């Protein structure tokens, strides 16, 4: 089922089957160019597949925006070790719910993307690491995997080509940290979900110490279209160096929240006004978190920005995972900061010092400020603690907690100051003669 009506401004590549009757079934999939990209890939030498993905300018949709083709090219094909394809379906970034609809509505698209990646790097096993909360989606995926086996798209000797590929779903246990690729691999291997020292990167030493292609759901889902229609066609949909379309999870104070597939580089204000139907209740826009809560907030006047990785970075934030959170003028920024920090404090894995101790400290100060028990020095302290975490943590979770916090304090300092307790006149002490 769909959560929102499609919008005419959308460019539907990955979501083209959304809304079709039985869009989850392999029959619908095959009737709508399903597995065409994979069949093409079977005819191509592996290097050509990777080349095509490179041409598409597809950048990782999990948040970091690393070019997918480049990532695949790091996998040493000649390595005697088995290779793995791992899907990061641990969609945990607050404000993001795009992988969910992709898997829910078109699971075979994901499987086809995995098959193409497997073909490109010579993998025979694939894992879909999916967050435990998406239990019903695991059932959808498992059904799709069963269908694919039945029709010869998975298993031994796929389509008579001699290619072998098995796919398994694997549940996470509810940790945000396990969306970080190396922590995901640890968790997949049955260990405590905490990140690994890198290098080596997963392409060289990933699942079970073997070369691994690890991408986000949306990244894999873009691959069938790239192979089917050509990398150049996909690239042309977006802006330079930012190929294709992207699923934006538009939420917050808009009239029509939902997941919309828009070309890379789509203007943020236009997204809010036209796609999202404007701010709820005709209020004024105050700020936007453009890519999930890890991204620094943009004030209303900063929101005239093209939504691609480079432009948003230039504007001082990140495109992240595409979770656009819109806030109107009634939003209390101190409460936003508290809520976001509560999340990161709860999710900090505890491995490294600055993230483990920094997030709880920040949370406590912010909660105190919010409760009206702050001190004037607290506001600068919040910024300084965040800066002390920034760039010094073991994995990006610490940065994800620090960066937005710095932006809240810098951009909405007056709201924090307004929360400080009013000065109370000190009574003259009673002098006992």
């Amino acid at each position, binding site marked *: 089922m769909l959560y929102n009506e499609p919008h005419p401004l959308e460019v539907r590549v990955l979501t083209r089957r959304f809304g079709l009757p039985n869009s989850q079934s392999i029959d619908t999939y095959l009737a709508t160019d399903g597995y065409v990209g994979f069949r093409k890939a079977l005819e191509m030498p592996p290097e050509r597949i990777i080349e095509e993905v490179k041409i598409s300018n597809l950048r990782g949709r999990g948040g970091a925006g690393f070019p997918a083709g480049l990532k695949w090219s790091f996998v040493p094909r000649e390595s005697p070790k088995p290779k793995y394809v791992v899907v990061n379906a641990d969609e945990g970034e607050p404000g993001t719910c795009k992988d969910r609809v992709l898997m829910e509505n078109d699971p075979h698209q994901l499987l086809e993307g995995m098959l193409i990646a497997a073909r490109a790097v010579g993998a025979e096993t694939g894992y879909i690491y999916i967050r435990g909360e998406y239990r019903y989606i695991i059932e959808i995926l498992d059904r799709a995997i069963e269908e694919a086996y039945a029709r010869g798209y998975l298993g031994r000797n796929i389509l008579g080509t001699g290619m072998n590929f098995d796919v398994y779903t694997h549940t996470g246990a509810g940790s945000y940290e396990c969306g970080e690729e190396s922590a995901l691999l640890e968790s997949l291997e049955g260990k405590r979900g905490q990140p690994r020292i890198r290098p080596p990167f997963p392409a060289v030493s990933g699942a079970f110490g073997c070369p691994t292609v690890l991408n986000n759901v949306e990244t894999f889902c873009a691959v069938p279209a790239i192979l089917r229609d050509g990398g150049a066609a996909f690239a042309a949909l977006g802006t330079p160096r930012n190929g294709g379309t992207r699923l934006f999870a538009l939420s917050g104070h808009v009239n029509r929240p939902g997941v919309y597939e828009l070309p890379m580089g789509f203007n943020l204000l236009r997204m809010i006004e036209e796609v999202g139907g404007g701010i709820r209740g005709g209020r004024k826009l105050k700020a936007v978190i453009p890519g999930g809560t890890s991204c620094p907030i943009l004030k209303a006047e900063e929101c005239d920005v093209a939504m691609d990785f480079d432009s948003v970075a230039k504007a001082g934030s990140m495109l992240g995972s595409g979770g656009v959170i819109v806030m109107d003028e009634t939003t209390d920024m101190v409460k936003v900061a508290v809520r976001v920090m509560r999340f990161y404090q709860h999710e900090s894995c505890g491995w490294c*010092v600055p993230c483990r101790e920094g997030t709880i400290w920040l949370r406590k100060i912010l909660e105190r400020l919010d409760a009206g028990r702050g001190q004037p020095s607290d506001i600068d302290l919040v910024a300084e603690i965040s800066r*002390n975490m920034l760039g*010094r*943590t073991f994995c990006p979770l610490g940065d994800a907690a620090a960066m937005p916090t710095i932006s809240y304090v810098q951009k909405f300092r007056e709201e924090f100051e307004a929360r400080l307790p009013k000065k109370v006149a000190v009574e003259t002490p009673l002098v006992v003669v």
Partner: protein
Amino acid sequence: MEELVKLTIDGKQVEVPAGTLVINAAKAAGIEIPAFCYYDGLALQAACRMCLVEVKKAPKLLTACTLVAQPGMVVHTETPAVVEARKAMLEFLLTNHPLDCPVCDKGGECELQDMVFRYGAGESRFLEQKVHTEEKQFSPLVYFDAPRCILCYRCVRICDEGLGVKALGVVHRGVYTEIGPNRGDHLECDECGMCIDICPVGALTSGRYRYKTRPWEMQHVGTICAHCSNGCKTTLGVRNDAIIRANNRDRSGLNGEFLCVKGRFGFDFVEHPERLRTPLVREGGELRPVNWMQAVALVARRFEEIRARGGRIGVIGSNRTTNEENYCLQKFARQVLGTNHIDHHRTGDVVALVDALAGRTGALATTGDLYRTRAALVIAADLAQQQPFLAFQLRANWRHHGLRLYAVTPGPVREEQYAVRSVRCRPGEELAAVEGLAAELKGEPELVILFGDAVKGELVHRLVAFGDSLGIPVKYVCLVDYANSRGAADMGLLPDLLPGYRPVAEAGLERGMALPEILAAPDLDALWVVGANPLKDAPLASTAAFVVVQDLFLTETARRADVVLPAASAYEKTGTFTNVCGEIQQLRKAIDFPGAKTDLEIFGLLARAMRAEIGPANPEKVFEEIRATVPGYNVALPVLAAGGAAPSSPQNGRVPVEWRPELIRSARDTLFRSGTLGRYSQALNSVTEAPGELYRG
């Protein structure tokens, strides 16, 4: 020739082997990069973020503990950005730290204190409530105070990687993350206490030491452990003539940081209430306290009397007394008492090995060889239980250099966790199983063979012949039980051998009675037992024999004695021990025990009372004599004086004695048992309930 890499650290040109981590490259150049979680020889963590350094062209600070030195790399370790980062990390660490330094065991020797003193801020900006959890007891010996923990994961790594026990793990998440036992709420482990010593702060504390003293109030005496044959250096913390703790935090000695439960906690037998404090003499069937003069005079008179009438005197020496004492004892027996009925409890057939290796040098492996050898073969021994340091050394070799280990054992052993080949055999069929491995072993570049008491007598010769047949360099370790078992054999506490494995015929003597024969002789006139408890296992046939026992406790043997002389323990004397690998190390006296005398002093007193001349009862003087007269013991004194281990090299020639394999019998102590001493150690007794089988494999 290994490849070298040139880089610049703080303006200094540094040249290090390729693959060196920047933190170690800096150390080589005399630059300290602070770190908590980095620990030499354990897996990398990069968790504490203390070692962040600035590297030219890197966009952000990098952890020196995971950064491999690259040619031309330019590293700065003291820039404002680095200094500020360190300060920030320490501030973070202290936010939820209880700062209970005034009552913390680690106060004064705490790495967190040191780091804050050197790099930290002078004031606190933390106004919030700290996260607090209650202290937990993991075992009788290990306590854990989570708030003090800085989560460097050293304890988890040493337990898993170092010992192969995996008793400790990580529980909960984020700021609530804690170290915890992997099985339930308590430790089922070796109780080695490595986790306590390796802890940089006061989070893991010792059940025996906690809240007893401040570190600076103790004197630290580096000596050799009194228990098993591995010869670990242990540093005793002494205050007011009491041993408060033992550890080896300075990683000196052949064992580095390693100590097992005995070395770290098993020292408390010295203060057991049943420790003998005065000589005892049997009067009217009862042992009654007398003074030393009376006791010595009585023994001297009886010995003289029995000697004068040509009576048979049996002498049983110890696996725990020093080389000097063993040397003097056999000298006393042979020269003063004129008896050659002298023996000790033999726990491994060292004699047969020395004989089998006649004509070659360097065929006895040292503890260092165990860490470096490319391949090792363990025969019929449970190293983790009986030779804990050797087990640690082999495991470290496997972790660091990929040792290929072969194990041939009757039962499961922990080495099987990583052995390339493990073979189960029925007791008595060990060698046949070993010979089945010939083809595989021939492919190894070198081999160290460690064998237990199942290989003895002729079998030792068969084993050495097998080693020769492999066509590769082979070294041997004959496993023995106790702190100076090896020294007892080297010093000639044997009825057929003089010190240095020289036949008694050289001294014009006949072969004497061995231990069981002494006990079984119905016409024995006197039995002199020094630091041994032979009557625990066998009765004394001669009911009329005059029995003298020197011991710490009233053992089964001492209870039969006519005179009991209270002896000093290894921690109360100086001298030397020779460990299982033939390495000589020096004991340093930690405390005085009132009432007791060292066995050497006792020999001196007896000699004087008998107007006999055995030389000065001074360990240094006796060792001089040993160096001059015992083949293989002419070692460099400065090595010993500096706390080092000097390898001995026993006589290089055939040892023409009759093989007596039936005399070789290991006591098969476990990690938690240690003969008489173990029985009187409260610490060891407190953990003997720990199920020793559980953590294997």
